[in-house]
């Protein structure tokens, strides 16, 4: 209504000279007129000039006196025309504020005789204050001295009134179309989409968050890694077996029974089921033999190998526990059939009885790759590592001699991290020892090259996560889990 009034008026008139008057003439709230003028101005329908007017208005106190009379008059009227009234009695007749101000003002005006008893000095008074207040209330002007005295008594204050003079703006039209926010089916059916004016989008804000499902970042990286392994002709090992015997986890790998990794503070041993009930006995004998007194050119460890130790169940500390069983099966197969080379990989959970901190959990995922073939060399191992890691975007590698009970030579793999500006350890590798392979039944010329790394480490680097607990486990922040991007290793 206000908008129609303004635009309609301007159609035939040059100017609305005063929005306040304009509002008053039409009985529209001025605040509403101001809102519409502001909005029209924003779309350049109108040009405006500010008008500022200052007027005196009554304070709450002023309003009260305008209605009830000034305190001095009230006091005067409370004093009897004849005689006097005691101060205490007079105080009882008036409320305390009125009494106090009334006394001061009436005294000042010499209307009454102040003292213990109060009596009139004049018989008739005029309530000039009330009159003045009423005049101001009616918007009339009064002279400056009166203003000053009322202002001094805080009965009036100056109020600034803001309004506009309004003229047509560059986009003026007698009627404003409401900008559309969206294209609707009705627009299409009615065909009025041609006339629609759209409200501009705000592209500095993001769209609303999508409702969708999400995959876990570790699994995204795992999927890519599995693909890379398949590109390199590696076959996935069935690693869905967390409970393992010490035999397959350690002994078969020529890891001596006194090795510190077999201590209870590194490995989760089991209360239930505490021991393994079944092992391939012939092979166990071979393993015992090679641990105790060697063979195949080895001196062995020269200690008394205990079956009880081998029988102890544990949660596997590495997926190599599965590799040892896969290799054993391959060697058994090769006893009856021609030996066929194999490439195996796995990415699965392993368990370490370690203290949990920013970079360590009691569970993590191990990535493992191994090649079993004739005539493999250290050079092949370096070559396959180069091939594998360059597909992960790590092409600058170097290798550090290291110790690992079941590989010889053993190499730690370092990659130069451009972001960190330094060499970081990314994995471990080596050639399996003959003391591990020969008891399985492999011919002498068959060797195995293998490497391993954790899935968490590259994932943390990739997704910029510096606390492993933010990535894996129940303390993760679901919001962060939902924001992780695609894993593009091997693609970009």
């Amino acid at each position, binding site marked *: 209504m206000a908008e129609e009034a303004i635009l309609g008026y301007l159609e035939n008139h040059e100017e609305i000279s005063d929005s306040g008057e304009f509002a008053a003439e039409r009985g529209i709230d001025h605040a509403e007129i101001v809102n519409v003028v502001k909005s029209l101005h924003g779309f350049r329908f109108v040009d405006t000039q500010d008008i500022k007017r200052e007027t005196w208005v009554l304070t709450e106190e002023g309003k009260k006196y305008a209605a009830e009379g000034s305190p001095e008059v009230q006091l005067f009227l409370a004093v009897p025309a004849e005689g006097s009234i005691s101060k205490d009695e007079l105080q009882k007749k008036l409320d305390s504020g009125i009494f106090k101000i009334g006394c001061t003002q009436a005294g000042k005006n010499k209307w009454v005789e102040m003292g213990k008893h109060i009596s009139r000095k004049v018989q008739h008074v005029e309530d000039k204050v009330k009159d003045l207040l009423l005049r101001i209330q009616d918007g009339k002007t009064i002279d400056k001295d009166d203003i000053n005295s009322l202002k001094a008594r805080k009965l009036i204050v100056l109020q600034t009134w803001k309004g506009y003079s309004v003229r047509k703006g560059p986009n003026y039209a007698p009627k404003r179309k409401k900008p559309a926010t969206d294209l609707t089916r009705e627009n299409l059916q009615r065909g009025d989409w041609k006339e629609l004016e759209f409200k501009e989008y705000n592209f500095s804000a993001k769209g609303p968050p999508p409702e969708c499902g999400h995959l876990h970042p570790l699994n995204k990286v795992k999927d890519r890694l599995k693909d890379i392994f398949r590109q390199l002709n590696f076959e996935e090992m069935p690693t869905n077996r967390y409970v393992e*015997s010490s035999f397959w986890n350690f002994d078969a790998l020529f890891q001596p029974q006194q090795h510190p990794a077999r201590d209870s503070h590194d490995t989760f041993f089991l209360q239930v089921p505490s021991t393994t009930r079944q092992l391939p006995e012939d092979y166990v004998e071979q393993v015992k033999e090679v641990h105790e007194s060697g063979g195949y050119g080895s001196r062995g460890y020269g200690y008394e190998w205990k079956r009880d130790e081998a029988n102890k169940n544990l949660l596997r500390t590495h997926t190599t526990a599965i590799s040892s069983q896969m290799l054993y099966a391959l060697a058994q197969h090769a006893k009856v059939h021609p030996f066929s080379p194999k490439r195996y990989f796995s990415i699965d959970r392993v368990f370490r009885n370690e203290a949990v901190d920013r970079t360590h959990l*009691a569970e993590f995922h191990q990535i493992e790759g191994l090649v079993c073939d004739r005539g493999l060399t250290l050079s092949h191992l370096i070559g396959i590592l180069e091939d594998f890691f360059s597909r992960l975007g790590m092409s600058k590698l170097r290798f550090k001699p290291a110790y690992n009970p079941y590989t010889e030579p053993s190499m730690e793999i370092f990659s130069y991290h451009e972001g960190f500006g330094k060499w970081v350890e990314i994995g471990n590798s080596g050639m399996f020892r003959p003391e591990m392979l020969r008891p399985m039944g492999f011919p002498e010329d068959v060797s195995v090259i293998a490497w391993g790394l954790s899935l968490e480490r590259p994932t943390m680097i990739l997704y910029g996560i510096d606390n492993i607990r933010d990535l894996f486990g129940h303390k993760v922040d679901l919001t962060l889990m939902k924001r992780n991007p695609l894993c593009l290793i091997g693609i970009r």
Partner: protein
Amino acid sequence: MPTVNVVRDRLFAALGRTYTQEEFEDLCFSFGIELDDVTTDEAISRKERHEEEKANENEEIIYKIEVPANRYDLLCLEGLAQALRIFNKQDKTPTYTVANISKESMHKMQVKPETSSIRPYIVCAVLRDITFDEASYNSFIDLQDKLHQNICRRRTLVAIGTHDLDTLQGPFTYEALPPQDINFIPLKQVKKYRADELMEFYREHDLKLKKFLHIIENSPVFPVLYDSNRTVLSLPPIINGAHSAITLKTKNVFIECTATDLTKAKIVLNTMVTTFSAYCKRKFEVEPVEVIYSDGKAYVYPDLSSYNMEVPLSYITGSIGVSFRAEEVTSLLNRMQLQAEQSVSDADQCNINVSIPPSRSDVLHPCDVMEDVAIAYGYNNIPKRKLPSLKPLALNQLEDLIRVEVAMNGFTEVLTWILCSYRENFSMLNKKDDGSTAVIVGNPRSSDFEAVRTSLMPGALKIVGHNKDHPKPIKIFEVGDVVHLDESKDVGAANRRLLAALYCGTNSGFELIHSLVDRVMEVMGTPFVPVGDNTGYYIQCSDAPEFLQGRQASIIYKGKRIGIFGIVHPEVLNNFDVPDPCSFLELDIESFL
């Protein structure tokens, strides 16, 4: 692939035995041809007329046989029968000869220079003293038709004319004349036409011949063949003259092939004469014709010499993957119409000397010989050699597919720990440990690692408990392994792979979890069936302590309970410090394999 229609009983007569359809199909299959359809002439014509009459029992059975596109020698019954008889070791490959006659007594074909602008080549031959019966006569006509359709590319490359030689008088001329100057009675007509009028006539009245007119109609001269009496033999590639038409009684057949492609013309001529010289008095002998071009160059056709090829035995055995001895290879090749013998070259390399008859124009390279060895040996007798390949892990692949599917249903994947506290695995789930389910760690460093989970529920609830501020609803899932004690396993325990999904919101979201169950079953191709039906899945009330009474159900898949879903028990929620209602699903995905 071209299809040849042969009368079954005639074919069997030619093969010297009858076959059941299955036996015959097997024979075709191993030779590399295919019995496409079994029908009758009457059935074919009924089909053409769109009639549905009943078949007459006396109708002659027709075999429609599909032959390889490069085996022109198999385009008629005679060729097929001969190839199969040789394949069956009933016959030896014949030796085709050109009759030894003097140049003077040889028929001559003079080629006029004008032909070079329209159809420059011609090859000819005579089948002397031939005896047709109705079937062989029809076959002779049909073969020309098949050749025209296939190798001759609808007469554009080669056109065949066959004539009763006894009605003609050599020497012959192959000319190219303006159409107005050519006048003759064409085959199947009684009056003379001028060539240009004839073209118009065929355009109007002959659906079959109409298709060939374009080959010459825009040329100022038309190719035409005359005998010495100016009798028109033919107006190639459109029509023969009526005068020299062959009949059942024809004894001597003059064959001419005019062409734009000389190699194909020779193949066509050889195919015609090698196949039908079998009906001549002097079997497999063909009388030559001399073709003399205007520049004086003269050629004698047909060229029935064999093409010789030395093929190393190692090439054959190496390509097929069977270590044949040389004698085996030669005898196998003999079954494929290829004369072969071990060549006596140097000691290191054993070669097979292969003589390729004129009927086998498809043999270009030793690889064609090698293929014939393999066919004769039988593709299905060749041992299988496997290339290295990778065995997939079905469970992991299924897991990956299901994970993506559940994420597509709007759930967010989580990965939780396999180890949990003893209480989380039992009492906090309102469960009692009877000692028969969970793997228990002997030396845990903290209470977080006391037991191996037997359910994915604690992990999911712990996530919700740690994400209280996350906007609701929370929809999470996990596919992961649990471990159960298992007496039958060497270590006494075994993993199982489960799918878990959890909904947490201001209400329980039970329907949403229910619909996820249905969706998983749908993507597994499992129908929803009535209770008790073991062909699909159904849902049945359950009574598990971790779920609210009356708000939970088992999932029965093919008669086996594979999962459970329901509203999580409020006490359990409280135990895990979860203030909002949750519904939870747990499903054993290994059961789908």
